[in-house]
C-alpha cells in the first residue's frame, strides 16, 4: 500500500494545496490515529533478511487542538522523538494515519508534502548540533525561504530574517554572525526563529530546553509562550522535565514503550493520574523542596524498560507494575476513560485497574486503621 498509496494520494492532491482554511480554536488541527512506526532489524550482509522490528511507536492515537500546547512525556526509548519525526514526515509511518485539517498527510510526497511541511515546523533539542556551523545566522534562518520562496520574496528576505531575530529577542545586527558566537540559550532562539520563518501553525518542540542552563531555561519557555499567543501557534511539546511540561501544557500525554498510556488535561494528569506508570513517574520527580523529603511517598519502579524489539504481551507496563494480574498479560488495555471512575479521574487511561493514588492510599489507611482497631478489640476481648 505504501508506495502506490503515496503516489496516488500525491497525484490526487492539487499542486498548490496551501491548507489555508482556518481551524477554530479548540478544534483538532492534527488527528493521529493508530500511528505505527517499526524499524526493521536485519541480519546477514549478503542476504539481508528481517529478523524482527523495533516497535518504536506502536498504535498511538490522539488529537492536537488548534492553539493548545500538548505536552508529551516519557522516559528515553518510549518513542516520543520517533513520534515527532513521523509527524514531521522525516520518517515514513509504518501504519496508521495523520490528518492535518482533515487531510491525510502521512503518505504524501513531492509538492503536497512540501505544502504541509510549511505549516508544521520543528525546534530541536540540541542547539549545538542542529545549526550548521558554517552558515551565518542570516543564512540559517533564511534557508526555509529558499524552499518556500512564496513566503518571502528574494528582496525582502534580509528584512524578514531581521524581523525574526527581533521577535525571538536577538539583536537584528547579529545577522552575519556564526552559531559559535552565541551561547546555548541564544542558539535555541535562533532555532526557534528558523522554526517560525514560514509562519507555521504547528511547532513540534523536541526537548527544546533540556540542553540549556537552569537560569536560561525560563527565558526560552517564556519566549515560546509569548510566541504562541502572538502567532496563534499549536505546540506539541516533548520533554522529560515534568515540571516544565506542566507549566507550559494545556494537555499532557504520557508514553511508555511506544504507546500512549494516559492523556488528559494538565490537572487530570498531575493531580488525578490513574495509570500506575504515570503515578510512578510523577512520584520519582525530585521536588525542589527539602521539607517534602521525609513526607514523600515515592514509588520506586524495579527493573528497566523492556526492549521495544520484544515488548511484553498484553499491557506493556506489566513487567514493572505492582498491580499486574493475569488479565494484564493477555489483554491489551485500551486508552479510554475507565467507566468506573468519575470526575477528574475519568480521563483516558490505558489500564485495566486504573485508579487514583490518593483513594488507594486512603483505602490502605482505612484498612490499617481497621486492622489496628480489630487488634485492639481482639486484645480487649482477651
Amino acid at each position: 500500500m505504501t508506495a502506490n498509496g503515496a503516489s496516488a494520494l500525491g497525484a490526487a492532491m492539487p499542486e498548490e494545496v496551501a491548507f489555508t482554511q482556518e481551524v477554530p480554536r479548540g478544534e483538532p488541527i492534527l488527528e493521529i490515529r493508530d500511528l505505527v512506526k517499526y524499524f526493521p532489524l536485519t541480519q546477514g550482509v549478503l542476504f539481508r533478511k528481517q529478523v524482527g522490528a523495533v516497535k518504536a511507536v506502536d498504535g498511538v492515537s490522539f488529537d492536537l487542538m488548534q492553539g493548545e500546547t500538548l505536552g508529551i512525556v516519557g522516559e528515553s526509548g518510549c518513542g516520543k522523538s520517533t513520534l515527532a519525526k513521523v509527524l514531521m514526515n522525516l520518517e515514513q509511518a509504518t501504519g496508521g494515519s495523520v490528518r492535518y485539517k482533515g487531510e491525510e498527510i502521512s503518505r504524501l510526497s513531492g509538492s503536497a508534502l512540501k505544502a504541509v511541511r510549511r505549516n508544521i515546523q520543528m525546534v530541536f533539542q540540541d542547539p549545538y548540533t542542529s545549526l550548521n556551523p558554517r552558515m551565518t545566522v542570516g543564512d540559517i534562518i533564511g534557508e526555509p525561504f529558499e524552499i518556500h520562496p512564496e513566503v518571502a520574496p528574494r528582496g525582502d528576505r534580509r528584512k524578514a530574517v531581521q524581523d525574526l531575530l527581533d521577535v525571538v529577542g536577538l539583536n537584528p545586527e547579529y545577522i552575519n554572525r556564526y552559531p559559535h558566537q552565541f551561547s546555548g540559550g541564544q542558539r535555541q532562539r535562533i532555532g526557534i526563529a528558523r522554526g517560525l520563518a514560514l509562519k507555521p501553525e504547528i511547532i513540534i518542540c523536541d526537548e527544546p530546553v533540556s540542553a540549556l542552563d537552569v537560569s536560561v531555561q525560563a527565558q526560552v519557555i517564556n519566549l515560546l509562550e509569548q510566541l504562541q499567543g502572538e502567532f496563534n501557534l499549536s505546540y506539541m511539546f516533548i520533554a522529560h522535565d515534568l515540571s516544565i511540561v506542566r507549566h507550559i501544557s494545556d494537555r499532557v500525554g504520557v508514553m511508555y514503550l511506544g504507546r500512549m498510556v494516559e492523556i488528559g488535561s494538565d490537572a487530570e494528569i498531575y493531580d488525578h493520574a490513574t495509570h500506575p506508570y504515570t503515578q510512578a513517574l510523577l512520584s520519582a520527580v525530585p521536588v525542589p523542596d527539602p521539607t517534602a523529603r521525609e513526607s514523600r511517598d515515592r514509588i520506586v519502579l524495579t527493573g528497566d524498560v523492556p526492549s521495544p524489539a520484544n515488548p511484553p504481551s498484553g499491557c506493556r507496563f506489566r513487567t514493572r507494575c505492582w498491580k499486574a494480574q493475569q488479565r494484564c498479560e493477555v489483554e491489551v488495555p485500551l486508552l479510554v476513560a475507565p467507566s468506573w471512575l468519575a470526575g477528574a479521574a475519568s480521563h483516558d487511561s490505558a489500564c485495566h485497574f486504573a485508579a487514583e493514588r490518593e483513594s488507594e492510599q486512603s483505602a490502605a489507611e482505612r484498612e490499617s486503621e481497621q486492622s489496628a482497631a480489630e487488634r485492639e478489640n481482639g486484645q480487649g476481648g482477651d
Partner: protein
Amino acid sequence: MGTAAQTTERERGTPYEGPLLDVRDLHVEFVTRDGVARAVNGVNYSVSAGETLAVLGESGSGKSVTAQAIMGILDMPPARIPRGEIRFRGQDMLKMSKEERRRIRGGRIAMIFQDALSSLNPVLSVGFQLGEMFRAHRGVSRKEAKDKAVELMDRVRIPAAKDRVNDYPHQFSGGMRQRIMIAMALALEPDLIIADEPTTALDVTVQAQVMDLLAELQAEFHMGLILITHDLGVVADVADKIAVMYAGRIVETAPVHDLYARPAHPYTRGLLDSIPRLDQKGQELYAIKGLPPNLLRIPTGCAFNPRCPRAQDICRAQVPELFPVTEDDGTPLEGRGSACFFWKETLHDR
C-alpha cells in the same frame, strides 16, 4: 566553613576528627589562546564523614573543575593551580608527591562521572574493570579480583551478577552502567566520594533508584559525599548542606532547609524563582536576565552584577567576600554565608 579543627598528621585508617576534606582558597586557571580563563577563583568548602555537600551551579561555574582539582585529574597544562590548599585529613594534597596522590585517588577518594558509557572502557568486560581496582591497589590475583567484582555488583543490586560479570558495558542499560560506576567507586571503601552529575543522563524513574542506592551506601560506610549538580530537585532530596557556585566562586553556603526557605544571595533566589510552580501556571516564569559570564572576561566586582536586580555601584567596584549571614538581631545562622553586599535585604525580602 573553615571550622577546621587544628589538624595534625594522622595515620591512615585511624579515626579523624576534623573535616575529611577541606578546600581552602583554591584557584584554577586555564591558559587558552585567547587569554587566561579563571575557572575557579578562591573556593572554600569542607566535608566531614557521613555528610553530603551539594555543589550547585550552572555550566561554567567551576563546580566540576574544583572536583577535578581535588581528584588531581586536571590536565596541566593547560590548567594550573596558582594558589590554594586541598587538605585531605589535614594533609595538603597539592604538596604531595605523585605517588602519594595516586594512592589516595581511587583508594581514599573516588569519583563517579556523569556519563557512565564514556567512563567505562568499551572493549573490556565490566568484571575486568571492577577487578582492576583490586589488582592495581591491593595486588590480588585475577581470580580473586573477579570474585570481588561479583560481590560488588551484588552490592549495587545488579541482578544476576554472576552471569553478567563478563558482559561488556554496551550490554547494560544506562541505570545499570551507573550502578557499575558506583560499584567501582565503592570498591576500595573510600572515605569520600565525589559524584559529578551522577544522575543527569538517566531517566527520572532510574534516577530515583540510583540516588537511593548512593545515599544508602553512603550511610552504610559513613562516607563523605560531594554531589555536584545543577538540579535543585536532586539537591533538595539528598544534601545536608549546599554551596552555590557562580563564575568560579562560592556565592552562598547554607544548610539545605535554610537555602530553600530563605536564600541570601540574589542568584540563588533567581534560580529558585525560575522553577515552574503550580500557582504560577499560565503566568510568565521568573527568568534571570542575561547570560552566564565568559570566564575570559569575568565582570569586575561581583560577577553576578550585570544580571542582578539589586546591583549598585559598590557591586561593580568591589568583589564581595562570603559574609556570615545572621538574623536581624545579630544571631549567627549556623553554616550560612552569602557573597552579596545586600544579603540582609535579600534574606528578608521573602
